[in-house]
């Protein structure tokens, strides 16, 4: 085969590989060209986070408004401290809203749902949620049910 044709075909092969990598990056993985400064941080303390993990969903009325940034253990209060990145354009969350851990489906992923309060003031960068509700614990529910409480 002529040298030129071979070179062109090999070039196309390498381009196909790079295109495959690009496809994997953009379509298959969660990589998206979003500006890093488009979020602000809020905190919440939970007694039990259940199966929550970083990059989990944060939703309000079912709409995704942010992701979980990190989860750490507060060594003084022995509660889990969850740091959340909320989209900047959702900047009017009332200051007395609650962060509730819900499960999507029976065996589904757990996510944080923000239930709105009534305060006129909004949560700002670095604020902590005043009230939270921990993850549902199946064993505790069953034992409550079984002991008739």
């Amino acid at each position: 085969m002529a040298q030129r044709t071979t070179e062109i075909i090999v070039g196309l092969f390498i381009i196909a590989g790079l295109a495959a990598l690009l496809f994997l990056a953009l379509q298959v993985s969660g990589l998206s060209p979003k500006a890093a400064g488009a979020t602000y941080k809020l905190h919440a303390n939970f007694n039990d986070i259940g199966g929550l993990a970083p990059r989990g969903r944060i939703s309000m009325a079912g709409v995704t408004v942010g992701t979980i940034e990190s989860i750490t253990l507060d060594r003084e209060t022995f509660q889990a401290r969850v740091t959340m990145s909320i989209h900047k354009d959702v900047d009017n969350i009332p200051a007395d809203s609650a962060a509730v851990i819900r499960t999507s489906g029976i065996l589904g992923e757990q996510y944080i749902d923000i239930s709105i309060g009534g305060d006129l003031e909004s949560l700002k960068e670095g604020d902590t949620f005043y009230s939270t509700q921990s993850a549902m614990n199946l064993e505790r529910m069953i034992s409550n049910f079984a002991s008739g409480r």
Partner: protein
Amino acid sequence: MMDRIAALGRTGLDVIASLGRACQFLAGVVGGVPKPSVGFPLLVKQLYAVGVLSLAIVVVSGLFIGMVLGLQGYTILSDFGSEAAIGQMIALTLVRELAPVVAALLFAGRAGSALTAEIGLMKATEQLSSMEMMGVDPLRRVIAPRFWAGFISLPVLAMIFAVVGVWGGMLVGVEWLGVYEGSYWGNMQASVDFVDDVLNGLIKSVVFGFVCAWIAVYQGYDCVPTSAGISSATTKTVVYSSLAVLGLDFVLTAVMFGNF
């Protein structure tokens, strides 16, 4: 009795000597960088022979493996009512494990054995030694382009395998079995991380490419220069490459995805 033990010791020493020769060989191949004007056309020719001609088997295998993953995954996930997670399952399986490993195994079988046979035949017909006598370093001229071609091709082939597999899974899951296309791609994008999954798969395929190419060219270079020797070397290439790929896959997976 003592003869048997002596023979065992000799075999062990032979294996170690072979490993040492392989490392010296690698140093010669990697160290001897040829002039770009001479080396580049050789590399392109080998990339064609090793990479482009392996595309057919990689694409067809990727397609069928993706489709089978879709079918099997759907069957299992529908027991839990989680058919929508099929996209995530196929993508993670392919990108993390199957694309690098299966592409490497197919590569070892098709391109690796071809490389070994070609270099072995060159050794048996004394082309390599006559090149040395003319003052041309056979490692630089013949072996190095083949080695680098293998090293460059395998990551490319693995990425193409992953993409074709995901598309095949979409064909089965969305078109045939009726999973909602939005949740196929949406769940996939939410759970596949570029750095943790795609890049780790790419790193695996780079390591496998290095190992498979090295084993293939070394077995060809080191074979007994008879027809039986070439055939034994070709078999050894496929077997050793496969074992090395699977063993390294375990080690790399433990390092990358284990929770130490």
